[in-house]
């Protein structure tokens, strides 16, 4: 009899189960392999355990938690098929603004002498608002004018950097209140990073917001035809990314207990790298929060591992580049093998 596409049984059951393994399994393995490699090298060269050290594990995440928060937003932008180059500059700008509203009355030359010792929500809200506003500009430019995200966010990147410097004429803003500093101390940034990742993990997987985000990235025209208001949704996605850059700005200034215009200018690339290492595709439609968290952790492990092994600063970057490439190659290789196996 003439039978149809679908009546055909799946080629075999085993590959089907294999296909259900979450795509980030591969990169998670890479993370584990890296950590074990450092563990091994640790015993050989510095006679210490790399992993059996709670403090180190915290720093490992702590030092990448700001990048991580940015990466959570950037991942969503990347899933829509876009890119956000402005994050680093927006972090700097929001750090300045938030810090200027978080100064204690002891500050010698406060930016707003009348506005010191404010409750901590005010600088935080200001930082988030400035970040979201920058994101709104990104999103509106992309949605309304149809220019490539690369250009829109590059423009916002330059403008935000200029604004950050202009805000206090390059002067750092310091002497921040203790409650504000508390946001950045201890493992608080780690908690904020993981909480943010969790919230947007749920949003991406279980809400319409998430489905639309993937749909736009998978095929923008098809998403439009399915009735999704693509422009409006992009504005929301970029605004969220901006908001998270704002949060990152608050975290950085709270951690440093000071706001500086020059801070975190290159973080956009690290954040994008974290997302891409975690499996997000710059051509859109693909990417997951769990992958991004793992990508971020890989950056953290590599940084901590180098310090741990006391590798000369000159070699660190040479090797870091190679590790990033190797991590992604290993992941790809695993994926491709899985595909041909089925």
């Amino acid at each position: 009899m003439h039978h149809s596409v679908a009546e055909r049984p799946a080629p075999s059951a085993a590959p089907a189960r294999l296909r259900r393994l979450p795509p980030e399994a591969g990169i998670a393995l890479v993370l584990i392999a890296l950590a074990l490699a450092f563990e091994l090298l640790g015993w050989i060269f510095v006679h210490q355990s790399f992993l059996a050290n709670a403090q180190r594990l915290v720093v490992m995440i702590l030092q990448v938690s700001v990048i991580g928060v940015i990466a959570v937003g950037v991942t969503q932008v990347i899933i829509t098929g876009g890119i956000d180059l402005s994050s680093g500059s927006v972090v700097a700008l929001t750090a300045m603004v938030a810090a200027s509203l978080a100064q204690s009355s002891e500050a010698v030359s406060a930016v707003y002498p009348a506005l010191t010792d404010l409750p901590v929500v005010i600088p935080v809200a200001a930082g988030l608002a400035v970040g979201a506003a920058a994101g709104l500009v990104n999103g509106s430019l992309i949605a309304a004018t149809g220019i490539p995200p690369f250009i829109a966010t590059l423009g916002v990147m330059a403008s935000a950097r200029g604004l950050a410097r202009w805000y206090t004429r390059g002067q750092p803003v310091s002497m921040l209140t203790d409650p504000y500093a508390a946001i950045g101390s201890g493992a608080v940034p780690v908690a904020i990073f993981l909480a943010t990742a969790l919230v947007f993990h749920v949003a991406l997987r279980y809400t319409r917001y998430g489905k639309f985000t993937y749909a736009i990235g998978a095929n923008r025209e098809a998403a439009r035809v399915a009735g999704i208001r693509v422009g409006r949704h992009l504005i929301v996605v970029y605004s969220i990314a901006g908001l998270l850059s704002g949060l990152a700005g608050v975290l950085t200034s709270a951690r440093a207990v000071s706001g500086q215009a020059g801070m975190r200018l290159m973080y956009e690339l690290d954040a994008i790298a974290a997302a891409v290492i975690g499996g997000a595709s710059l051509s859109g439609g693909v990417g997951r929060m769990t992958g991004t968290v793992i990508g971020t952790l890989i950056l953290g492990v590599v940084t901590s591992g180098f310090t741990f092994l006391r590798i000369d600063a000159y070699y660190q970057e040479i090797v870091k580049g190679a590790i990033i490439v190797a991590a992604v190659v290993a992941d790809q290789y695993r994926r491709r093998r899985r595909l041909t196996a089925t």
Partner: protein
Amino acid sequence: GVSMALFDDNFLTAVRASMKDRAQQLGVQIQFEDAENDIGRQLNEIQNFIAQHVDAIIVNPVDTDATPRMTRLVASAGIALVYVNRMPADRELPPRVSFVGSDEKQSGTLQMTEVCRLLGGKGDIVVLMGELTNQSARQRTRDIDDVIARPACRGIRVVDRQAANWKRTAAADLVTNWLSGGLRPAAVVANDDEMAIGAIQALRQAQLLGSTMVAGIDATPDALAEMKAGALRVTVFQNAPAQGRGALDTAVKLVRHEPVPSFVWVPFELVTRDNLASYLGRH
């Protein structure tokens, strides 16, 4: 016209601010450009200034080895030139070209000599370096090694040195990483105060501030506050206002064809708890 190596540098910001104030006092029109640590960009800015026929150009060089070309370019256009803060590599400066600044060799030496004195000539230290490609970072790090080589400081050992790129949080992360590896240095010597403050934050978190001494350079307000709080033991004051003011005054004199020495020195000053009071509020 003024071309600064980098706007995002706290010290250079102070230099810039004092130049601006001085220009206002004297009624001089002044225009700043940011070379963003890029020698090519700096050359462009200088050429743009020349095309614009300004009276004098003040340059805070990105790369002091590239100054001979700048000197030639500007001098041949008949424009006055003042280098500020970083000493040009020119063997001798032609007329109408001057340098205003401090001898970078002093800063690290002053810092490390004091650390060595406070440690009693022995102990393990770690070094937080600025950006590896930055001249001051390299000079200050080399000064540390030179001081350690002295007989009086032979007991001091550098157990690790890493770059924290002048960043507070990067420094805090590095120091925490070290501490978590069981390292207990007697002192953290940082190429600048920002990184010193980062180290202090990390040590404070680990409650090891009592047993580890921190030293920086620059005497920024934040650093002086930390010194007042007892956390920072050593820093070095580089007189940014004097450099900025000096550069502008020199430029004005050169434009008026008044005699000016080729090198105008502004000395570094060691700051410790003992003389802290006289530096508070000087920025």
